[in-house]
C-alpha cells in the first residue's frame, strides 16, 4: 500500500508540556511493498512519524494518506479505525500490551475488534502463531508466564493477526538477546516477502538496516534528511558524514582495511558475506 506524507506538521503533548513541531513539515512517499528503515537520534521524531501513520497522533497541518484513506487534523473516527485496520503497529516493548488470560485470547483481541468472524479468527490465530515461529501448545498458557522473547513474539502475532497491509515496527528487537533479535527481524523480512506488505522499521542498528531493509529514511529534528536506497546511502561517504550516522560493521572493517593497506575496494560491502567474497577475491590477486 502506497503511503504519502504531504507537508505534515505535528506537535507532541505530554501532560502540560507541549513540544512544538516534533514533525516539522515532512513530505515523503513510501512505495508499495518496500521495506524501509527509519533511523535517527533519540527525539528526532521517529516515533511520532509512526504514530502519524496510524492516526494515533493527528497532524496539526498537512495530510497523511495510506492507500485511498487520508488523515488530516480533523481525523474522523471512522477513517481512523479503517486506517488502524490497514496499518499494524508494533510498539517498542510490545509485550507490555499483553493482558488476556490466555495467549489465544490475546492474539484474537485485535481481529475481534476489527470485526473478523469466529472462524476467521481461529484461522488467523493459528496462522500468525506459525508466522512468528511459535507452536500451538502455547495457546492456552497465560501470556504473563512466558519468557521475554516468547512474549514479544505473541505480541507481534497479535498485530499481524489483523492482516495489516502496512506493518510498522518501533525497534522490535530492543531488549532481546542478539540471537532472538536476529530471529525476529528475519521473521519479519520473510513475512514481508511472502505477503507483499509494506514494512517500516525503526532501528538504531545499522547492521539491521543493511541486512533487512531496502530503503532508509534518516530523520533529524523532525525532518527527513535523506530517503534513498540502503546501498545508495552507504556508497556515499560524504553523505554519511553529513548526516552523522554510523556504519554497519562490515563496512567499518572495510574502511579500516582500506586505511591500513591503502588499497581501495571496488565497491562497498554491506554484509559479512559481501566482505568475505571481496577479501577472498583480493587474496587471489
Amino acid at each position, binding site marked *: 500500500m502506497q503511503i504519502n506524507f504531504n507537508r505534515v506538521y505535528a506537535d507532541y503533548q505530554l*501532560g502540560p508540556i507541549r513540544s512544538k513541531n516534533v514533525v516539522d513539515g515532512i513530505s515523503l512517499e513510501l512505495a508499495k511493498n518496500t521495506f524501509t528503515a527509519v533511523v535517527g537520534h533519540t527525539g528526532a521524531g521517529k516515533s511520532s512519524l509512526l504514530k502519524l501513520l496510524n492516526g494515533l497522533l493527528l497532524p496539526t497541518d498537512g495530510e497523511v494518506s495510506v492507500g485511498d484513506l487520508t488523515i488530516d487534523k480533523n481525523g474522523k*473516527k471512522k477513517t481512523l479505525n479503517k486506517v488502524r485496520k490497514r496499518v499494524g503497529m508494533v510498539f517498542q516493548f510490545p509485550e507490555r*500490551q499483553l493482558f488476556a488470560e490466555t495467549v489465544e485470547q490475546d492474539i484474537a483481541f485485535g481481529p475481534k475488534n476489527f470485526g473478523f468472524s469466529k472462524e476467521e479468527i481461529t484461522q488467523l490465530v493459528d496462522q500468525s502463531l506459525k508466522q512468528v515461529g511459535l507452536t500451538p501448545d502455547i495457546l492456552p498458557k497465560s501470556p504473563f508466564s512466558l519468557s521475554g522473547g516468547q512474549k514479544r513474539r505473541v505480541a507481534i502475532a497479535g498485530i499481524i493477526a489483523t492482516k495489516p497491509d502496512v506493518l510498522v515496527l518501533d525497534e522490535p528487537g530492543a531488549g532481546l538477546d542478539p540471537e532472538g533479535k536476529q530471529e525476529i527481524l528475519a521473521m519479519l523480512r520473510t513475512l514481508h516477502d511472502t505477503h507483499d506488505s509494506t514494512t517500516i522499521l525503526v532501528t538504531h542498528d545499522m547492521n539491521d538496516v543493511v541486512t533487512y531493509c531496502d530503503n532508509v529514511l534518516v530523520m533529524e529534528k523532525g525532518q527527513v534528511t535523506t530517503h534513498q536506497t540502503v546501498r545508495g546511502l552507504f556508497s556515499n561517504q560524504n553523505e554519511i558524514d553529513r548526516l552523522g550516522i554510523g556504519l554497519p560493521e562490515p563496512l567499518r572493517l572495510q574502511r579500516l582495511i582500506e586505511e591500513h593497506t591503502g588499497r581501495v575496494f571496488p565497491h562497498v560491502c554491506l554484509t559479512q558475506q559481501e566482505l568475505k567474497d571481496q577479501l577472498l577475491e583480493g587474496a587471489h590477486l
Partner: protein
Amino acid sequence: MKSLILGRYFPNDSIIHRLDARAKLVAALYFIGLLFFIDHGLGYLFVGLFTLGVMYLTKIRLSVFIKGVRPLIFLILFAAMMRVLFTGGGEVFVSWGPFTISSQGLWVGLFTFMRFILIIFISTVLTLSTKPVDLTDAINALLKPLRKLGVPVDDFALMLSISLRFIPNLLDETQRVMDAQRARGVIFGEGTIVEQMKKLVPIVLPLFASSLNRAEEMADVMDVKNYQSGEKRTHFRQLTWHTSDSIALLMMVGLTAVVIVVNYTMV
C-alpha cells in the same frame, strides 16, 4: 487525563513559587479550615479577592486554574443546589414538598459554591507552585513530632515521595498502553457503559503488571543499596525558612482577624 490540573506542578519563578513548602502547606490547610468559619457574604468577598491575588502572584494564567475546576464543576453545582433546596428561612420564593427556595437557602448555596471553588483554587495554587518532592519534605517536617509516638514518619514520607515520583511514569505508561490497544482496534469512549468498562481491562491489567514489576525492581535496588528503614538520615534537599514565609503565615493571622471581625459585626 491531559486536562487534570489539580496535583500538577508548573515550573515558574514567582513569589509564591519561592515560598517555603512548609509555609505554603500550613497556610493552605489553615486557609481551607478558615473557609468553614465564614458565614457572611462580605467575608467570602474578602477571602475570594485574597485568593485571586495569590493566584495572580503565581504568574500562572487564570485559564489554567479554571481548567482545574472544570472536571469538578458538576459535583460542586450539585452540592450547592442541594443546599439551596433543603435550606429554609428568610423570604420563601418557591415551595414544593420538601424542597424550598428561600433567600437564606440561596445565600447558603452561594457560600457552598464559593467554598468549594476557593478550596480548589488554593490547593491548585499549592500544587502548581510547589515541587512534589518539596511538598513531601514539608509533610515529613510537619509530621516529625509524631515520631516520638512511634509513627514511622520517614517511611511514610518516602512512600509518598516514591508514589508522587512515579505518577508521570504511570501517566506516560497509560498513554502508551492506550495507544497500543487503539492500534489493535479498540475505540475508547464509545458503546454502552458495560462495553466501556470492558475496554478498561486491556489498559488496567498491563498497567498493574508493569507497576508490580517496577515496585519489585525498586525494592530490590533499595535493598542492594542497603536502605534501612528507621535509620537516622540527612536530607539532600534542605528547606530554608525566609522572612517572606513568616509574612505569609502572618497574613493568615490577619485574614483570621478580618473573618472574625466580619462575622461579629455584620450580623
